[in-house]
Protein backbone atom coordinates (compact mmCIF):
# COMPACT_ATOMS: atom_id res chain seq x y z
CA UNK A 1 0.00 0.00 0.00
CA UNK A 2 1.29 3.47 -0.75
CA UNK A 3 2.23 5.40 2.34
CA UNK A 4 0.44 8.47 1.00
CA UNK A 5 -3.29 8.03 0.62
CA UNK A 6 -4.49 11.62 0.82
CA UNK A 7 -5.91 13.03 -2.39
CA UNK A 8 -4.88 16.55 -1.42
CA UNK A 9 -1.30 17.53 -0.69
CA UNK A 10 1.60 15.70 0.82
CA UNK A 11 4.90 16.77 2.26
CA UNK A 12 8.06 15.20 0.94
CA UNK A 13 11.52 15.24 2.36
CA UNK A 14 13.69 15.49 -0.74
CA UNK A 15 17.34 14.44 -0.93
CA UNK A 16 19.77 13.33 -3.58
CA UNK A 17 21.90 10.20 -3.77
CA UNK A 18 24.46 9.78 -6.54
CA UNK A 19 22.63 12.18 -8.82
CA UNK A 20 19.19 10.67 -8.21
CA UNK A 21 16.56 12.89 -6.59
CA UNK A 22 14.54 10.97 -4.04
CA UNK A 23 11.58 11.98 -1.89
CA UNK A 24 10.16 10.39 1.23
CA UNK A 25 6.81 11.00 2.90
CA UNK A 26 7.72 13.33 5.76
CA UNK A 27 5.39 11.38 8.07
CA UNK A 28 7.82 8.47 7.91
CA UNK A 29 10.65 10.58 9.36
CA UNK A 30 10.83 11.47 13.04
CA UNK A 31 13.84 13.77 12.71
CA UNK A 32 17.07 14.35 10.86
CA UNK A 33 20.52 14.64 12.46
CA UNK A 34 24.01 15.48 11.36
CA UNK A 35 25.95 12.41 10.28
CA UNK A 36 28.85 13.30 12.56
CA UNK A 37 26.81 13.31 15.77
CA UNK A 38 26.97 10.14 17.85
CA UNK A 39 23.99 7.78 17.69
CA UNK A 40 22.43 6.05 20.70
CA UNK A 41 24.26 2.79 21.52
CA UNK A 42 23.36 -0.28 19.42
CA UNK A 43 21.67 1.80 16.73
CA UNK A 44 22.20 0.29 13.30
CA UNK A 45 23.24 2.78 10.65
CA UNK A 46 22.48 1.91 7.03
CA UNK A 47 23.61 3.89 4.03
CA UNK A 48 20.93 4.34 1.38
CA UNK A 49 23.08 2.82 -1.36
CA UNK A 50 23.61 -0.30 0.76
CA UNK A 51 19.88 -0.97 0.81
CA UNK A 52 19.28 -0.64 -2.93
CA UNK A 53 21.58 -1.24 -5.87
CA UNK A 54 22.86 1.80 -7.74
CA UNK A 55 24.77 -0.54 -10.08
CA UNK A 56 28.29 0.70 -10.70
CA UNK A 57 27.66 4.29 -9.61
CA UNK A 58 30.16 5.64 -7.14
CA UNK A 59 28.93 5.78 -3.58
CA UNK A 60 30.08 9.30 -2.78
CA UNK A 61 28.17 11.17 -0.08
CA UNK A 62 28.85 14.89 -0.26
CA UNK A 63 26.68 16.08 2.62
CA UNK A 64 25.41 13.02 4.51
CA UNK A 65 22.43 13.34 6.85
CA UNK A 66 20.77 10.73 9.07
CA UNK A 67 17.04 10.11 8.82
CA UNK A 68 15.42 8.63 11.91
CA UNK A 69 12.26 6.64 11.17
CA UNK A 70 9.00 7.58 12.86
CA UNK A 71 8.45 5.29 15.90
CA UNK A 72 5.08 4.00 14.68
CA UNK A 73 6.85 2.28 11.75
CA UNK A 74 8.76 0.02 14.19
CA UNK A 75 11.84 -0.04 11.97
CA UNK A 76 15.33 -0.97 12.98
CA UNK A 77 18.13 1.58 12.78
CA UNK A 78 18.56 4.80 10.85
CA UNK A 79 19.34 5.54 7.24
CA UNK A 80 22.01 7.85 5.85
CA UNK A 81 21.05 9.97 2.84
CA UNK A 82 22.85 12.75 1.02
CA UNK A 83 22.27 16.38 0.09
CA UNK A 84 19.05 16.99 1.97
CA UNK A 85 17.02 19.62 0.14
CA UNK A 86 13.97 21.57 1.16
CA UNK A 87 10.73 19.98 2.33
CA UNK A 88 8.34 20.06 -0.61
CA UNK A 89 4.59 20.26 -0.33
CA UNK A 90 3.18 18.74 -3.47
CA UNK A 91 -0.22 18.17 -4.93
CA UNK A 92 -0.89 14.43 -4.82
CA UNK A 93 -2.26 14.62 -8.36
CA UNK A 94 1.36 14.99 -9.46
CA UNK A 95 2.24 11.58 -8.06
CA UNK A 96 2.32 8.68 -10.50
CA UNK A 97 2.85 4.97 -10.15
CA UNK A 98 6.16 3.55 -11.33
CA UNK A 99 5.77 2.06 -14.82
CA UNK A 100 4.79 -1.60 -14.52
CA UNK A 101 8.13 -3.00 -15.70
CA UNK A 102 9.94 -1.21 -12.90
CA UNK A 103 7.30 -1.55 -10.20
CA UNK A 104 7.37 -5.31 -10.46
CA UNK A 105 10.97 -5.49 -9.32
CA UNK A 106 12.66 -5.34 -5.96
CA UNK A 107 12.80 -1.61 -5.47
CA UNK A 108 12.02 0.64 -2.51
CA UNK A 109 10.32 3.10 -4.87
CA UNK A 110 6.57 3.16 -5.09
CA UNK A 111 6.00 6.17 -7.32
CA UNK A 112 7.31 9.25 -9.07
CA UNK A 113 6.42 12.86 -8.37
CA UNK A 114 6.26 15.00 -11.47
CA UNK A 115 7.36 18.46 -10.35
CA UNK A 116 8.03 21.66 -12.29
CA UNK A 117 11.76 21.17 -11.86
CA UNK A 118 11.86 17.49 -12.76
CA UNK A 119 11.09 14.05 -11.42
CA UNK A 120 11.48 12.86 -7.84
CA UNK A 121 11.46 9.13 -7.08
CA UNK A 122 9.34 8.31 -4.05
CA UNK A 123 10.90 5.88 -1.62
CA UNK A 124 9.13 3.95 1.11
CA UNK A 125 11.24 3.79 4.26
CA UNK A 126 9.59 0.52 5.29
CA UNK A 127 11.12 -1.11 2.20
CA UNK A 128 14.57 0.19 3.10
CA UNK A 129 14.98 -0.57 6.77
CA UNK A 130 14.40 -3.92 8.48
CA UNK A 131 11.62 -4.33 11.00
CA UNK A 132 12.51 -4.15 14.67
CA UNK A 133 12.97 -7.61 16.11
CA UNK A 134 11.44 -8.01 19.56
CA UNK A 135 13.50 -10.48 21.57
Amino acid at each position, binding site marked *: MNPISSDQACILLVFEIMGVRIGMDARQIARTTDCHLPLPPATNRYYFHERVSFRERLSDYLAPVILHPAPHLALDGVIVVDQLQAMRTIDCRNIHRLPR*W*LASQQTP*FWGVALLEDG*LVLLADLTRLLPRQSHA
Partner: protein
Amino acid sequence: MSEQAEQPYAEIIQHAEQQRAQEQQLDVDEETVQLVVFKVEDKMLAIPGCHVRELVPVGEIVYVPGTSELFLGVIPIRGEIASVLYLARLLGLSTHARPRTPSHRILMVVKEEMSTGVLVDAVADIIQTPKSAIQPHPSTLDPQMALLAEGQILFGTEPAPVISVTALFRQLQELCA
Protein backbone atom coordinates in the same frame (compact mmCIF):
# COMPACT_ATOMS: atom_id res chain seq x y z
CA MET B 1 2.20 13.32 -89.28
CA SER B 2 1.10 10.07 -90.94
CA GLU B 3 -0.94 7.38 -89.18
CA GLN B 4 1.94 4.92 -89.66
CA ALA B 5 4.37 7.19 -87.87
CA GLU B 6 1.98 7.60 -84.89
CA GLN B 7 1.47 3.85 -84.51
CA PRO B 8 4.63 2.97 -82.52
CA TYR B 9 3.89 5.73 -79.97
CA ALA B 10 0.32 4.60 -79.58
CA GLU B 11 1.58 1.13 -78.71
CA ILE B 12 3.99 2.52 -76.19
CA ILE B 13 1.28 4.61 -74.57
CA GLN B 14 -1.12 1.68 -74.50
CA HIS B 15 1.54 -0.53 -72.94
CA ALA B 16 2.35 2.11 -70.33
CA GLU B 17 -1.33 2.49 -69.45
CA GLN B 18 -1.70 -1.24 -69.06
CA GLN B 19 1.34 -1.37 -66.79
CA ARG B 20 0.02 1.43 -64.62
CA ALA B 21 -3.38 -0.21 -64.37
CA GLN B 22 -1.73 -3.47 -63.27
CA GLU B 23 0.34 -1.66 -60.67
CA GLN B 24 -2.74 0.12 -59.33
CA GLN B 25 -4.50 -3.22 -59.16
CA LEU B 26 -1.55 -4.57 -57.12
CA ASP B 27 -1.63 -1.53 -54.84
CA VAL B 28 -5.30 -2.04 -54.10
CA ASP B 29 -5.02 -5.78 -53.55
CA GLU B 30 -1.82 -5.93 -51.50
CA GLU B 31 -2.15 -5.28 -47.78
CA THR B 32 0.50 -2.91 -46.56
CA VAL B 33 2.03 -2.29 -43.18
CA GLN B 34 3.71 0.79 -41.78
CA LEU B 35 7.13 0.18 -40.27
CA VAL B 36 9.37 2.45 -38.27
CA VAL B 37 12.93 1.60 -39.30
CA PHE B 38 15.61 2.46 -36.79
CA LYS B 39 19.20 1.78 -35.82
CA VAL B 40 20.52 0.26 -32.61
CA GLU B 41 24.26 -0.29 -32.26
CA ASP B 42 24.74 -0.09 -36.06
CA LYS B 43 22.07 -2.74 -36.58
CA MET B 44 19.01 -1.85 -38.65
CA LEU B 45 15.71 -2.92 -37.11
CA ALA B 46 12.03 -2.24 -37.75
CA ILE B 47 8.87 -2.21 -35.65
CA PRO B 48 5.25 -1.98 -36.79
CA GLY B 49 4.23 1.68 -36.83
CA CYS B 50 0.75 0.88 -35.49
CA HIS B 51 2.40 0.19 -32.12
CA VAL B 52 4.56 3.32 -32.06
CA ARG B 53 2.56 6.13 -30.48
CA GLU B 54 5.25 8.76 -30.99
CA LEU B 55 8.95 9.43 -31.46
CA VAL B 56 10.42 11.54 -28.71
CA PRO B 57 13.77 13.35 -28.63
CA VAL B 58 15.86 12.14 -25.71
CA GLY B 59 15.85 14.42 -22.68
CA GLU B 60 16.86 13.48 -19.18
CA ILE B 61 16.21 9.85 -18.33
CA VAL B 62 15.88 9.47 -14.56
CA TYR B 63 17.63 6.35 -13.36
CA VAL B 64 15.62 4.19 -10.92
CA PRO B 65 17.97 2.36 -8.53
CA GLY B 66 17.23 -1.27 -7.79
CA THR B 67 15.61 -2.00 -11.16
CA SER B 68 16.69 -4.23 -14.03
CA GLU B 69 19.62 -3.19 -16.21
CA LEU B 70 17.26 -3.62 -19.17
CA PHE B 71 15.78 -0.26 -18.26
CA LEU B 72 17.58 3.05 -18.35
CA GLY B 73 15.00 4.74 -16.13
CA VAL B 74 11.89 6.84 -16.50
CA ILE B 75 10.86 9.97 -18.40
CA PRO B 76 7.92 12.33 -18.13
CA ILE B 77 5.77 12.32 -21.22
CA ARG B 78 2.52 14.23 -21.64
CA GLY B 79 1.91 14.35 -17.92
CA GLU B 80 2.59 10.65 -17.42
CA ILE B 81 5.66 8.61 -16.50
CA ALA B 82 7.10 6.07 -18.94
CA SER B 83 9.86 3.51 -18.57
CA VAL B 84 12.74 3.57 -21.06
CA LEU B 85 13.91 0.19 -22.31
CA TYR B 86 17.54 -0.27 -23.27
CA LEU B 87 16.82 -2.42 -26.35
CA ALA B 88 20.48 -2.90 -27.23
CA ARG B 89 20.99 -4.75 -23.95
CA LEU B 90 17.84 -6.85 -24.35
CA LEU B 91 19.09 -7.90 -27.78
CA GLY B 92 22.57 -8.61 -26.45
CA LEU B 93 24.10 -5.97 -28.74
CA SER B 94 25.63 -3.86 -26.00
CA THR B 95 26.04 -3.65 -22.26
CA HIS B 96 26.77 0.07 -21.99
CA ALA B 97 24.61 2.78 -23.51
CA ARG B 98 26.37 4.95 -26.09
CA PRO B 99 26.80 8.64 -25.39
CA ARG B 100 23.62 10.41 -26.45
CA THR B 101 23.61 12.23 -29.77
CA PRO B 102 20.98 14.49 -31.36
CA SER B 103 19.86 11.55 -33.50
CA HIS B 104 18.87 9.40 -30.52
CA ARG B 105 15.12 8.94 -30.11
CA ILE B 106 12.73 7.24 -27.75
CA LEU B 107 9.99 5.26 -29.49
CA MET B 108 6.85 5.13 -27.37
CA VAL B 109 5.73 1.55 -27.98
CA VAL B 110 2.19 0.63 -26.96
CA LYS B 111 0.09 -2.49 -27.15
CA GLU B 112 -3.23 -2.66 -25.33
CA GLU B 113 -2.52 -1.69 -21.71
CA MET B 114 1.24 -2.26 -22.00
CA SER B 115 3.70 0.42 -22.99
CA THR B 116 7.31 1.47 -22.70
CA GLY B 117 9.72 3.91 -24.25
CA VAL B 118 12.48 2.27 -26.30
CA LEU B 119 15.81 4.03 -26.75
CA VAL B 120 17.18 3.83 -30.30
CA ASP B 121 20.30 5.38 -31.82
CA ALA B 122 18.44 6.91 -34.77
CA VAL B 123 15.20 6.60 -36.73
CA ALA B 124 16.12 5.84 -40.35
CA ASP B 125 12.69 6.05 -41.95
CA ILE B 126 8.98 5.39 -41.64
CA ILE B 127 7.89 3.26 -44.57
CA GLN B 128 4.72 1.77 -45.95
CA THR B 129 5.53 -1.66 -47.30
CA PRO B 130 3.52 -4.64 -48.61
CA LYS B 131 3.03 -7.27 -45.91
CA SER B 132 4.56 -9.77 -48.31
CA ALA B 133 7.84 -7.84 -48.11
CA ILE B 134 8.24 -9.12 -44.56
CA GLN B 135 10.07 -12.36 -45.09
CA PRO B 136 10.82 -15.05 -42.50
CA HIS B 137 14.08 -14.25 -40.79
CA PRO B 138 17.03 -16.50 -41.64
CA SER B 139 17.88 -19.41 -39.37
CA THR B 140 21.29 -17.82 -38.84
CA LEU B 141 19.75 -14.87 -37.01
CA ASP B 142 21.09 -14.35 -33.50
CA PRO B 143 18.92 -16.45 -31.12
CA GLN B 144 18.04 -13.50 -28.88
CA MET B 145 17.04 -11.46 -31.93
CA ALA B 146 15.08 -14.43 -33.27
CA LEU B 147 13.03 -14.50 -30.05
CA LEU B 148 11.79 -11.00 -30.76
CA ALA B 149 11.71 -10.88 -34.56
CA GLU B 150 8.57 -11.73 -36.50
CA GLY B 151 10.41 -11.59 -39.82
CA GLN B 152 12.69 -9.25 -41.68
CA ILE B 153 12.60 -6.75 -44.50
CA LEU B 154 15.26 -5.44 -46.82
CA PHE B 155 15.87 -1.79 -46.10
CA GLY B 156 17.88 -0.74 -49.11
CA THR B 157 20.34 -3.60 -49.22
CA GLU B 158 20.43 -4.13 -45.48
CA PRO B 159 18.32 -6.79 -43.78
CA ALA B 160 16.28 -5.34 -40.92
CA PRO B 161 14.60 -7.76 -38.50
CA VAL B 162 11.05 -6.67 -37.65
CA ILE B 163 10.46 -6.64 -33.91
CA SER B 164 7.21 -8.23 -32.76
CA VAL B 165 5.67 -6.00 -30.10
CA THR B 166 3.79 -8.99 -28.70
CA ALA B 167 7.04 -10.94 -28.31
CA LEU B 168 8.76 -7.88 -26.84
CA PHE B 169 6.17 -7.40 -24.10
CA ARG B 170 5.96 -11.15 -23.47
CA GLN B 171 9.69 -11.23 -22.86
CA LEU B 172 9.54 -8.18 -20.59
CA GLN B 173 6.76 -9.82 -18.60
CA GLU B 174 8.95 -12.91 -18.13
CA LEU B 175 12.07 -10.94 -17.25
CA CYS B 176 10.37 -8.46 -14.92
CA ALA B 177 8.09 -10.91 -13.13
